[in-house]
């Protein structure tokens, strides 16, 4: 899932400074699961904003609304009947949802309340960890199911760098060295011979180097 953090409160408060009526828009997908921008977080931010503004004698009217998905044309129209009643939208979706809302309502100011951070997993309740960078060409079959792109700070493809010590990365001693994890997993799988196979330089065009990506399945299109 996509993981994000709510922006610092001060930053959000500054963004909404010129407005008296805002629509605070959450998303029920990934950003709900990572407890950053779901219905509950929308409630908390609305309450904080109302209190901070009331304290300064500048009351603010906030409509709380949470869409099933902000990144999907099937749901984005749900706010159409009332969006014009508000001066701005503060979106608590990931970067994709925020942009999609802005795209659909071109004359409306759409402000971000979330810093989108990574594609990751839930390790335990309240703890999320990065696993994927969406590089467009998966190599997990070669690396024992551990991604060298997302989990190695240097995205190395043929073994660790000199900064790997006692299984940890030199960038942060709490971060596992991805190549230590890869070797350990290959050993467990009885595939350590794969470690000797040279992985050629990666073609980064399917990743961000080829510019923004679009995926089309003609058979599913309705037009």
């Amino acid at each position: 899932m996509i993981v994000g953090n709510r922006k610092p409160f001060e930053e959000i408060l500054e963004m909404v400074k010129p407005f008296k009526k805002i629509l605070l828009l959450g998303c029920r997908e990934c950003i709900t699961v990572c407890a950053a921008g779901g219905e509950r977080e929308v409630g908390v931010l609305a309450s904080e904003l109302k209190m901070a503004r009331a304290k300064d004698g500048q009351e603010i009217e906030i409509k709380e609304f949470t869409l099933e998905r902000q990144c999907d044309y099937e749901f984005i129209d749900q706010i159409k009947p009332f969006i014009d009643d508000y001066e701005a939208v503060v979106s608590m979706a990931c970067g994709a949802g925020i942009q999609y809302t802005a795209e659909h309502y071109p004359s409306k100011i759409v402000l971000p309340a979330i810093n989108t951070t990574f594609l990751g997993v839930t390790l335990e309740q309240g703890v999320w960890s990065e696993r994927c960078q969406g590089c467009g060409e998966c190599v997990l079959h070669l690396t024992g199911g551990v991604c060298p792109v997302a989990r190695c700070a240097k995205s190395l493809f043929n073994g660790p760098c000199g900064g790997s010590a006692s299984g940890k990365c030199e960038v942060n001693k709490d971060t596992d060295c991805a190549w230590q994890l890869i070797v350990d997993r290959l050993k467990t799988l009885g595939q350590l011979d794969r470690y000797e196979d040279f992985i050629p330089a990666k073609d980064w065009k399917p990743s961000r180097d080829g510019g923004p990506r679009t995926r089309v399945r003609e058979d599913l299109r309705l037009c």
Partner: protein
Amino acid sequence: MRLNYPTFIKIIKVPCTGRVDILTLLKAFEAGVDGAYVAGCMEGECHFLKGNIRARKRVEYAKTLLAEVGIEPERLEMYNLSAAQGARFAAIANEMAEKIRSLGPSPLKKAKAAFVA
């Protein structure tokens, strides 16, 4: 026991302090209370195992949110006591009332009063 505690303290009953949500606490402050405290069972004695531990974590988090907003975090506290500690209940109520008195009314109330004036 006939112990006294301030009459302006209103008690909201919950089945377990684990039921207390961050939003419950924030809404109280948004409504204009000067202070609030959560009275949970003794740590290690929760009937639901971790309800009071979770409540404490939520109270700590809600305090950081109040600080962000500009409301003194000391206006919100978590206490642990057993149902048999009537004297401690009254002492906590008096202690919290005293603390709130020294802090004065909620900044939200002050702003409203200034705005009306």
